[in-house]
């Protein structure tokens, strides 16, 4: 059964529209709602949870209408799990009482608490600790256990890892999504971190300006972005102008030389989304390869390096990811070319804002 269906949901704060007709379908698994801050993703989550009432649209959870034709079900009757930022554990209750909070009195004494602790991969002896005695990652897992204990069909996670430090974030993220999948609930993970969204979710919904630009699998969102905004938001692609000629619909001529395109295009101007890992820097000796560029700066990461260059002819700025063995000197001249097929858009396609 479809875990969540959102149709045409709109909402404004005063005269500022925040959601402009949002549609989203979640069958099962974990869906990441990805967007920069202020794009409306947390507002959408609060509408689904029932804390906000949309001006228009419907919300259906596991086949039950939660918002339709002006009737809204209050949050407490929705049966949706909710994990806010930083967990928000009840500070006056221990771990067991937090997890049992949403259960009937008779269920609290049973084995549910132990099962939930096991589900979120925490030791059973944590049950009688208080929230202030737990680490940030443990608090997040207990918050998830609390949300999952009443067996919801849907659980909402509002940037649950943003307060954790980098190492803990990845580990906690994996454990949390494992637990959501094991529980059988569908999960919605709101995040502004594209790495988190791409690595943890089964489906990524890219939000911008109060609506979704693309809802697809992580690979599809990355490799076949629906528009230039998605392309430049995910993977920080650089948009470069080019021209498709009549005889060769599968490639474009650009300041970086001839670039192979992922799809065929009609003849005329296009904009090519070039990802940093597709930009190859070679020495200036070989004029047959690519455009002359000047190296502006280098960020060395050990396993590789990110090099920012300026195309001499056009002034375009490009980012190249190069292996750590072949890093050019800052200020020197090199040549850049594009390796592998790139995504291109018609020039009138929406420009990134």
């Amino acid at each position, binding site marked *: 059964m479809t875990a969540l269906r959102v149709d045409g949901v709109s909402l404004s704060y005063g005269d500022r529209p925040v959601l402009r007709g949002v549609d989203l379908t979640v069958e099962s698994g974990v869906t990441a709602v990805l967007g920069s801050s202020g794009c409306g993703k947390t507002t959408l989550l609060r509408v689904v*949870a029932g804390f906000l009432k949309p001006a228009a649209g419907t919300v259906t959870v596991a086949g039950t209408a939660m918002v339709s034709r002006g009737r809204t079900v209050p949050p407490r009757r929705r049966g949706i799990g909710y994990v806010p930022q930083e967990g928000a554990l009840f500070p006056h209750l221990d771990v067991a009482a937090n997890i049992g909070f949403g259960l009937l009195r008779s269920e609290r004494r049973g084995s549910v608490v132990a099962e939930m602790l096991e589900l979120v991969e925490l030791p059973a002896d944590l049950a009688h600790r208080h929230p202030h005695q737990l680490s940030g990652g443990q608090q997040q897992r207990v918050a998830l256990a609390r*949300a999952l204990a009443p067996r919801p069909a849907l659980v909402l996670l509002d940037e649950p890892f943003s307060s954790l430090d980098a190492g803990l974030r990845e580990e906690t993220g994996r454990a949390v999504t494992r637990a959501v999948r094991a529980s059988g609930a569908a999960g919605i993970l709101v995040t502004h971190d594209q790495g988190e969204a791409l690595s943890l979710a089964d489906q990524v919904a890219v939000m911008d300006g109060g609506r979704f630009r693309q809802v697809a699998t992580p690979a599809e969102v990355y490799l076949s972005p629906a528009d230039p905004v998605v392309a430049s938001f995910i993977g920080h692609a650089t948009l470069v102008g080019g021209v498709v000629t009549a005889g060769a619909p599968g490639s474009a001529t650009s300041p970086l030389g001839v670039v192979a395109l992922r799809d065929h295009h009609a003849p005329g101007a296009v904009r090519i989304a070039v990802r940093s890992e597709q930009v190859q820097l070679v020495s200036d000796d070989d004029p047959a390869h690519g455009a002359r560029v000047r190296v502006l700066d280098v960020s060395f990461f050990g396993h590789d390096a990110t090099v920012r260059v300026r195309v001499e002819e056009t002034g375009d700025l490009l980012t190249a990811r190069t292996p750590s063995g072949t890093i050019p000197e800052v200020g020197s001249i090199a040549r850049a070319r594009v390796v592998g097929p790139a995504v291109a858009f018609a020039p009138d396609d929406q420009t990134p804002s």
Partner: protein
Amino acid sequence: MAVRSPAGPPPGARGTASVPLLVAGLVVAAACLVPLGYVVWSATDQPPGEAVDFLVRPRIGELLWNTTRLLVAGTLLSVALGVGAAWLVERTDVPGGRLWHGVMCAPLAVPAFVNGYAWVSTTHAVQSFPGAVLVMSLSYYPLVYLPTVAALRRLDPSLEEVAASLGHGPWTSFLRIVLPAISPAVLGGALLVGLHLLAEYGALQLLNYPTLTTAILQQYASAFNGPAATLLAGVLVVFCLLLLGLELALRGRRRRSRVGGGASRAATQVQLGRRAPAAAAGLGVLALLALAVPLVSLGRWLLRGASTSLDLGALATAAGTTVGLAVVGGAIATVAALPVAWLAVRHRGWLSTVIERFTYTASAMPGIVVGLALVTVSIRSVPALYQTVVLLLLGYVVLFLPRAVVSVRSTLELAPPVLDDVARSLGCSGPQATVRVTLPLVAPGLAASVALVSLAVSTELTATLLLSPTGTTTLATGFWQDASAVAYGAAAPYALTLVVLSVPATWLLGRMTLGRSA
């Protein structure tokens, strides 16, 4: 009517406030505006010629000069004592360490008028300007000490480490880094001292040091001279407002923000080395003057007075009346603070801010002005209320509501709305969420609020003298009857009971400063 911030709900703010909540908040705010309204109204009500004639008399000039120099010297000495003690206790390895913290807070448990009585009954030398400055500073320096300790504790120690790495010694880094950083807390404490000095009646009357406040009560009590008392009250309120404005202006340009997050560490302590004994001796002398002198004097009079005139029955009645008034007053003030604090925390907006600010105006009103205002207003418009316990309790609530609002507000912040959201997503209705989540979290804070206001009520002298019904004796007024009649021995048991009653609140304040929950 609804409270809503213009740019849509910021994180944490929630929808619209309900009408009953707003009405409750407005009623509380209106009650708090009675004293200020009374002063403004009576200032416009007087014939201007007579008022000017009265105010330019040399006697008034003398009162203004006395009040001003006491205000300046007392505040400066309190700041010097408070900041010095706070720095020694919090930031140095002074022998005795944190034990001093309790000792430094303890003078708060001795009401200023008891302290004045203890000193006067020991030596008449304090019945002078330097004496008044000394005794008042010994009573009120903890009002600077406490916020300064709290600010020093919150101060990021890496600031001083950076100063040291830039070549500053402990003394220059204190002057250039620490002092500017803690200055808002010190200013806040100095403001409190100033307001207390302006409002003080009992101690200054015993010290035979006439100020505006003592003159107001004399005019009122001896001559029943309403217009004169009212005019002087207006002048006193102007003093208070000037003080508030001065503090605001001094603080306004200082912005203190902490950059970056992370867990704060304990600061490294300054090694006093050979100066350690001198530092400990300094704290010791302060403790001796502020604590030992009043307690020894009290003990002496207790022993001497016990043989002659200890009426246990009267003392017990006064204690019973005091505790009853205190608990009821504390409870009413806390209940009145709830809508104000709830609006301020959960429904931020201009109307909530206005309501909260209005409740704070009373904190600048000396007890004597609140008392006079309620007496005048009740006689003119609700005569049935005059000389009743209801009016007395109303006076206590208006006087001490700011304390209740501050503690209720900080405790409501312990229960952020997100906890309500989670509870509702787990199947709780609004009232269930309140009972299962909000109430358990805020109950200790509400209890602390009741306790703080109760203890303030139990040692309040000026407003009680003006407002209590004839025949009602509290510990403070019972003490006052004897002490002002130089019956020092008879006053001692009342004084001791007052001190004992004040110990819990003092302990609570000291603990709260150290950053543990109340």
